[in-house]
């Protein structure tokens, strides 16, 4: 089956976070860039990202956190994906993903350890993540941090 889309992407805001504005804009941005978007919207649990990725055979999952709950909720996401046989799915995270003011390098390192492929802490330009996604999808699953472990 040929897909008219460049890929299938799950998006959602993790935890008990209800910040919807960026979520809606991210959806439009990905759609305008040719991706098929499945938007789980706000207050999404890690299991729900995983179930949705399984259901639609997603290529990538964009996890957002605006209120900083990300650190708590994201630690186990990659493990859940691997257990579901979804180790190859790209995991991106972005927003204000930790509470308080911490150096960006430190935050990126932490979330890479969690198994995220790309980390956008306090990055306001969505087009960077979209360009990265297009690039990552050219390479095989073996390139992914998640699949390598």
């Amino acid at each position, binding site marked *: 089956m040929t897909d008219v889309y460049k890929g299938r992407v799950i998006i959602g805001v993790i935890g008990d976070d*209800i910040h*919807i*504005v960026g979520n*809606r804009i991210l959806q*439009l*941005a990905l759609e*305008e860039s040719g991706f098929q978007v499945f938007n789980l*919207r706000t*207050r999404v649990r890690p299991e729900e990202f995983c179930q949705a990725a399984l259901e639609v055979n997603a290529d990538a999952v964009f996890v957002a956190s605006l209120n900083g709950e990300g650190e708590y909720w994201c630690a186990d996401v990659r493990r859940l994906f691997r257990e579901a046989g979804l180790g190859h799915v790209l995991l991106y995270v972005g927003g204000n993903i930790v509470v308080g003011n911490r150096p960006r390098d430190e935050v990126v390192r932490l979330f890479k350890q969690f198994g995220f492929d790309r980390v956008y802490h306090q990055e306001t330009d*969505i087009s960077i993540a979209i360009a990265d996604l297009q690039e990552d999808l050219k390479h095989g699953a073996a390139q992914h941090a998640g699949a390598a472990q």
Partner: protein
Amino acid sequence: MALPSTRARLSDIEKYRAQVLAHPLARGISPDEVREHLAQVPRQRFPRIAYANRGPDPFIQPRGGFPLFEAQHSLTRQLSEAGADFIPLTIDSYTRQNQYDTATELLRRSEEEGKDYLNGYPLVSHGYELTRQLYSDLAKPVSLRHGTPDARLLAEVAIASGIAEIEGGAICYCVPYSEGFPLDRCLLYWQYVDRLCAVNSTEELPIHRESFGPLTATLVPPAIVVAIEVIEALLAAEQGVTSFAVSFGQTGSMVQDIATATVLRALTRRYLEEFGFAAVETYFVYHQWMGQFPVQRERAAALIACSAAIASMISADKIVVKTVDEAYGVPRPEINAEACDTVRYVLRTFRSAKSITSPMIERETALIRSEAESILDEVLNLSGSAFWESVFRAFHMGFLDVPFSPHADNANKLVSVRDANGSIRIADAANVPVSAQNALLEKELLESREDRAAQTYKQMLSDIRLMV
């Protein structure tokens, strides 16, 4: 189809009240005693009396709620001394979500540690007897500001406390504020609140209701705001509310603010009269910019001053003010008092010529009016055994679609961006029933935009950050 009608009136509310008042935190509220108390409070506490005596300028209302009684008492005094005409009582988030146990526990911790663990006044936890003391020497209306889908107990405690203005509504306090509170339940719970206001009203001293027109305050097309405000006025009128304010938030375009004010006023009257509710007294409230605020306090002050001038231009009955600390969080009482003073200064210094018009304003007014009418007429045409059911269905059909709502019952399909003039335009109406002609006109107006070739999401991002 079921048109707005007194047949929808919750005539047996006393039965439901007994259930709501059985809650321990109702602390034995007695409906008869509440009516006696309301008869004793100063008449000026009732918005109808206040509005009847308004001078040439819009009334000023700040926002504000602190967890501790003493802090709220002091804030009330400071705001009143600073010239606020309406005194706010902003409720904390846990109480808004009916999590009274958490609110009570965090109130206890706040009291013990002298540190605020709540972002507002936990009215239900404090109870009506203590809250009456907040206002023992106050001869101004107090406005309950919250964001509560199920506000039955909260409204009971507020009215028992002598608060005669209840903000909110089934749509405006659910669709922008909640992700999953069922909208149909919310519509029924707000029937209770509206009816409760009605049964606590006398002909001369009605408990006043106010709707929250800013909604998500993010690129909401004026026609959607007008339609929802009119619907909430009709739903309240069905339950016997006789004093009601519609409102909207500063759009970011002076042209659109003036046009929206004209249409909102006219259609609220038109539809109330059409369905036999001509006796309802209506007022019109303007909210200063509800979107992202500049962090520079000088810019914030400029924005506050300009929007005060617009409130005067559109002859608002009341303006709800922001402070220069808006970008930073809950303002200190002094900052809040300063904002009242700034707005008062602008209102008395720059009294505008009323009824400003121009070809551009006339075109905008005609467009918003035509769009709002077609939305309302389609909603009224939907099937249902009561008007509220048609409203509920309208969301499922996407006839009413509030951009950037987190609510699961909201379609989130309408796409809106600004034109070169800053006016909010419908780029894609999705299922919202605007005529082909109006949809085309919206698109034509968008052509004025300099970056019209840019991706929509980029346009939206810069539009949302308009004032920053």
